């Protein structure tokens, strides 16, 4: 029995009132030769109880991060979302609305998104934020195409964009897909042995349309060189910084060191890792990029009585008006998840976000200390030119005395999810490189279990 259909059993009544006989009359416009003959070969309809039972059985077969020590991250992190967030965001008026085309009855979501824009603007240190992108990778990709549209005319290296070396494939590949159509050439910005951007080589980027770097970088390193990039590449080249959003509770906002566009993953604010989606991307920029920006944006205005009101604005950039000349094809986006983000950010407040960043830093540091105390395991990029080894946020990378894949499988059998083999996500990475992520959810016991496990693996000959 299918439920949820309020007109079940009333089909005949409705058809007759239109002078029709049968449901098939309504499909008489489909030519016979393309009509489906066989009924759908699918299982029987299920009831809510049965669906729930199956969902529990199937999803219960997954191993949740929280159920064991977990050191997986790489841009998507185990976190704790205050209960207020899902409870308020799933209120039907938010949950079941769509794009606020009618601002008069959508002030709630519009205001919430305007507040979101403000909070992101504050977080990254740039004046303009949109109401979200699909995720960090598409945000980076569309930042690049946006920057090219803005700078290409004046660029001495037109259609050229520099992207940091060692970008994980899950972001690089997305960027590559998005730049094909705009005929953009991606070149690599190389890094030093200490894992940071090579500022000398960065001079080559001067005069190109955009430079895309990440802070902390894909190895988890807080790259102090990035602060000097803008000076090197100049005003006619966009500095795009991809951030780990929570790190900005402690780290200088990129707007303060010259970033023109800041992108990143919003997930850690508002929603669990949720297998990678739905999450939401951040996109903030200076006014210069505003009219080439992808995505929706909310502006404050007034109603016919002079009362304050909010509305979507600058929609002339968008596909439903500008069609093939639009700045992006984005239509449905991630607003509801951004709303969850806004709620979480508002609850944290200025000191809460700092505290969160401190907790991430502390967990990362404790894990690093513990892992590096194991003989044979070394920090990747330890050969720093400075006195100090690189400093990390949320994650760090080590060189194992054997293959990371083998270490991970050893740990997995002991009930520890030990991190990520960098060779799985980065071209050119050595099989011995392991990315270990720790968050505010990491406990001392977890760290202990990881280290004991890794130690045994090393003692056992790394297999």
């Amino acid at each position, binding site marked *: 029995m299918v439920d949820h259909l309020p007109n079940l059993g009333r*089909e005949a009544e409705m058809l007759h009132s239109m002078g029709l006989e049968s449901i098939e009359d309504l499909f008489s416009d489909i030519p016979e030769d393309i009509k489906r003959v066989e009924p759908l070969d699918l299982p029987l309809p299920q009831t809510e109880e049965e669906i729930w039972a199956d969902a529990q059985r199937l999803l219960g077969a997954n*191993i949740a991060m929280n159920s064991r020590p977990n050191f997986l991250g790489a841009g998507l992190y185990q976190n704790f979302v205050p209960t207020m967030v899902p409870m308020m965001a799933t209120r039907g008026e938010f949950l079941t609305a769509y794009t606020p085309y009618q601002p008069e009855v959508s002030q709630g979501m519009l205001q919430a998104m305007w507040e979101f824009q403000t909070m992101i603007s504050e977080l990254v240190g740039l004046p303009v934020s949109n109401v979200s992108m699909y995720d960090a990778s598409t945000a980076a990709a569309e930042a690049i195409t946006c920057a090219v549209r803005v700078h290409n005319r004046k660029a001495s290296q037109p259609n050229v964009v520099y992207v940091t070396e060692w970008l994980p494939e899950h972001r690089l590949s997305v960027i590559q897909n998005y730049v094909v159509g705009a005929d953009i050439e991606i070149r690599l910005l190389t890094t030093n042995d200490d894992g940071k951007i090579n500022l000398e080589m960065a001079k080559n980027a001067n005069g190109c349309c955009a430079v895309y770097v990440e802070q902390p970088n894909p190895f988890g390193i807080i790259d102090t060189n990035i602060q000097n990039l803008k000076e090197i590449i100049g005003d006619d080249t966009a500095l795009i910084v991809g951030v780990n959003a929570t790190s900005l509770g402690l780290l200088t906002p990129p707007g303060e060191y010259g970033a023109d566009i800041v992108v990143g993953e919003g997930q850690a604010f508002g929603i669990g890792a949720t297998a990678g989606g739905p999450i939401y991307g951040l996109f903030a920029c200076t006014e210069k990029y505003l009219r080439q920006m992808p995505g929706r944006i909310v502006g404050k205005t007034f109603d016919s009585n002079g009362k304050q009101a909010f509305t979507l604005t600058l929609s002339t950039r968008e596909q439903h008006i500008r069609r093939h000349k639009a700045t992006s094809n984005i239509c*449905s986006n991630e607003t509801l998840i951004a709303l969850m983000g806004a709620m979480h950010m508002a609850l944290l407040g200025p000191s809460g976000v700092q505290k969160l960043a401190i907790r991430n830093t502390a967990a990362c540091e404790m894990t690093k200390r513990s892992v590096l105390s194991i003989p044979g395991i070394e920090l990747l990029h330890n050969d720093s030119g400075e006195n100090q080894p690189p400093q990390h946020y949320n994650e760090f990378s080590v060189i194992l005395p054997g293959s990371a894949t083998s270490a991970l499988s050893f740990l997995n059998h002991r009930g520890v999810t030990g991190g990520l083999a960098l060779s799985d996500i980065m071209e050119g990475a050595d099989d011995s490189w392991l990315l270990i992520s720790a968050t505010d959810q990491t406990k001392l016991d977890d760290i202990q279990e990881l280290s004991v496990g890794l130690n045994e693996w090393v003692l056992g000959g790394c297999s």
Partner: protein
Amino acid sequence: MSDIFAFKGAHDAGYAQPKPLISEDEISSLIPNSMVRKNPPKWPTASEPELVRHYTWLSSRNFGIDSGFYPLGSCTMKHNPRINERIVQLPGMNDIHPLAPESHLQGLLAIFYEMQEMLAHCSGMDQVTLQPVAGAQGEFAAIRCIQEYHRNNGDECRNKVIVPDSAHGTNPASAAMCGYEIIEIPSRDDGRLDLDALRAVTGDDTAAMMVTNPSTLGLFEPEIAEAAEIVHEAGGQMYYDGANFNAILGKTSPGLMGFDAVHYNLHKTFSQPHGGGGPGSGPIGVKNHLAQYLPKPLVDRRKDAKGIDGYSYFWINPENSIGKVQQWHGNAGAVVRSWAFYRRYGRELEKMSEHAVLNANYLRYRILNPDSASLQGIPAMPVDGAPADVVKHEFTLSMSPIKDTTGVSGKDVAKRLLDYGYMAPTLYFPMIVPECLMIEPTETESKEVLDKFADDFLAILSEDPEIVKSAPHSTDVGRVDEVWAARNLVLRHPLED
């Protein structure tokens, strides 16, 4: 007016967190001096009680399907079953990492596999990827696949994509993002695909044609098979915008119509709530010849007595994959909700489409065939956006006769509907219908709601035009000045204070 930045609690009163694993004092030594943030972001300093009240208030100023009838054409605003929200809160969904070992994700992969198979079956496609996170991204990814297909065939010079003028804006935008030149062909006077116009633009530079069927007018294209033949003969690929898939499940399929690639809007057809603009989910299905280009990874399975129902599941990468369009595996949470929704219908998905179409036709009939009493006082009636005996899941009305007679525009009527407690229909789209209102009731609305809407709609037509032109009157705010917004661009809170 509740201003989230006006709450004045202590900076750290809002939300307490456990202690860090290292004392806070020690932290500064772990951050490069030059990188230490000087001022925290000026986020709100509010307590949970204040925020709960703030967001309760905001939600009370927002209209969703739960608030009332939401006949937003092309958007398929159907009821979102509540069990689906419960399912995605399970730790096995909410707290899993996409890069976890396959053995940690067997349940998710089983659901993915089932969805790939189900979508392929219903659409007559051979392979499905669940990766794109919205319809537009599905279009983009599929057109990228087609692009690679042509390149691989040495067909580099196919640089044009044909799009009817009734197409949704994302179609040309997505193809243009892939670098294609867009050829827009005008519709026939009756709103249907113009095969002659199509023939005129088709040639060996044709990469693909993108079609929505039923079209954005809610009409089934009777000559769709011929259109496919024309494009195929010229060596082009046929792309099906599946935003209107809700109309035809079990009745026909893009495969039967001759399409090579299709995107699904799970958030429309399969009821993923897309609160305030998203999230969505836009999987794509393709015929075998395009399958090797699909974004990676897909899910496959092998027999395994110890696995779930006798199978173990694993990721596979298509041979010549275009790579990725989203970092992870798409909007997995949306896929799982859609799976839960699909399970409710199973082999009776056809019934869903039947009721969607029944409701659309019924409402159209009720509006366009009022009895003489209801007609009284109505100076002019809207006309069909395009003539048709039956429509599919939605229909368009042109309000031109009313505009001509009383000066009341489609937008005015739309705004006035807000006063009656409805979301307004889609306005001025498709662009080929003058003063267009596009109405899609979906299958989850009752006859009573449709009857009432028809009555209210007609009542508005007989109202004093001045009342309609100055509508809305009973909403949280009056008609919003969008021009001021665009001119002044106040895009964030000033936070003076």
